[in-house]
């Protein structure tokens, strides 16, 4: 049983790109700034000419925690798992998981690279692995 993101018109492009193996953030066509999560208008210049920009995929672990107690029945068999906030090289942060190492080995400040985990038909989640 997977937990998959419901989508809105605003968020759907993010997940469609992830499904195609591209990590993107929203970007303002007027002032060029990027941010995540997506918004209906540019929070900097208030422009509404918005697009999506692929990021390099490099990032750093900003914070992390190993979850040892399931707060949802769907997660009981994944305990222990790690949740991380990764800060992309471009600046925005996102909530993610870390693969390629034990949950206990993830450290704040660790260099990571984006990868993708298919969890359901048409849905791949951005994850990160040690760089």
């Amino acid at each position, binding site marked *: *049983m*997977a*937990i*998959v*993101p*419901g*989508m*809105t018109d*605003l*968020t759907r492009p993010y997940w469609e790109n992830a499904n195609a193996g591209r990590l993107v953030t929203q970007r303002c066509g007027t002032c060029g700034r990027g941010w*995540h*999560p997506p918004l209906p208008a540019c*929070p900097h210049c208030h422009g509404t000419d918005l697009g999506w920009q692929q990021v390099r995929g490099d990032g750093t672990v*900003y*914070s*992390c*925690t*190993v*979850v*040892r*107690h399931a*707060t*949802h*029945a*769907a*997660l009981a068999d*994944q305990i222990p*798992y790690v*949740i991380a*906030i990764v800060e992309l090289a471009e600046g*925005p*942060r*996102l*909530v*993610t*998981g870390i693969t390629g190492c034990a949950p206990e080995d993830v450290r*704040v*400040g660790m260099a990571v690279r984006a990868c993708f985990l298919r*969890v*359901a038909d048409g849905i791949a*989640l951005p994850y990160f692995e040690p760089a």
Partner: protein
Amino acid sequence: MIRREVAIVGIGQTQYAKALPPAAWDLAIEAVTAALADAGIDPADVDGMCRFAAPFEPVSEPMLVRALGIRELTFFAQSPLGGEALGAVVAHAAAAIVAGLARVVVVYRALSQSKGGRFGRADRGRSEPAGDIVVPEEDNRSFAWPYGLMSPGQLFALWAARYAAVHGLSAEDLTQALGSIALTQRRYAHNNPAAMMRDRKLDWDTYRRARMISEPLRLFDLCLENDGACAYVLTSADAARSLREDPVYVLSATQTLSPYREPMGIYTDDLLTLFPPAAAERLFAQAGVTRADVDVAEFYDATSFMPLRSLESYGFVPDGQAWRYVVDQGTGPDSPLPVNTHGGHLSEAYLHGMNGVLEGVRQLRGTARNQVTDAAVALVGAPAGSAMILAR
């Protein structure tokens, strides 16, 4: 300015327990009725009502207006979110009174987690149908839940882990700091007949060995889950003085909201900056007091990490120093600033900070079980920066 123009004249609460038979509506009526009786005010005379908004607060203004026989509300206001509403409801009540929009304002909070779902369980205790769970997008939940970030405790763990990393704490340093807070608040609760943990001992061994929920936070680093209701009544200072000899004056009340606070900060500029520092400066400037004037603090503590970080955020201890401060000086009765003298959310009960307001009022009336000698000024505040300064 609201400074000393408004006062709390009545407080009321229900029993606090893991599960109470009455529905939230009944609990709200009980607490509000008790607060009005404490104030000596006839419920029919209530003309203002301030509350936390849905989905947090299940009891609406219409439900109380018809159940209490209130003649007419001339002012009502709701505040969104949880901790963000703590001081906001007081600010709204005070503003209404000062502006002449209402004379008697009730603030209430009723919780029936046993029936309405526990905040700590993402599945609300219901069994889901088989198949993938689709997370409807709201407040960026769809970007978090697929990774298993689904409950407040996990988010608080991310805050605490960042704090430890930024300030160079070892896991043991953090355990000692958080444990000091948890144990001190448990000891306060032992003197408090209303506290759910009044008879449950908590020593270092039990604290350390308890289940790790989400590293670095253990079971006793997270608040209780319970049913119950709290309420208090505000009037103008003049009206207050005709009602009782010990009105508790509101010196200031703040609310603050900045980008990505919802519902709790993940994408904020700095994960450790829980609210703009300007909000704390406003709180003190509008009150006309300094940190040194505060005799007791009731800090919203959904987790033990919150009082620790609140000591810094509200300016009592420099950033990065509170972990050492709580180990060396503590938050107990003999410390420079007693914190959560009722046991807090960790050991009295979890009422979204409202029970902290009631304890602040008791401290200033001189009727608290863990009374701070000559307490004259109390700060009641949430880590979200919504807070109030009260004084006798």
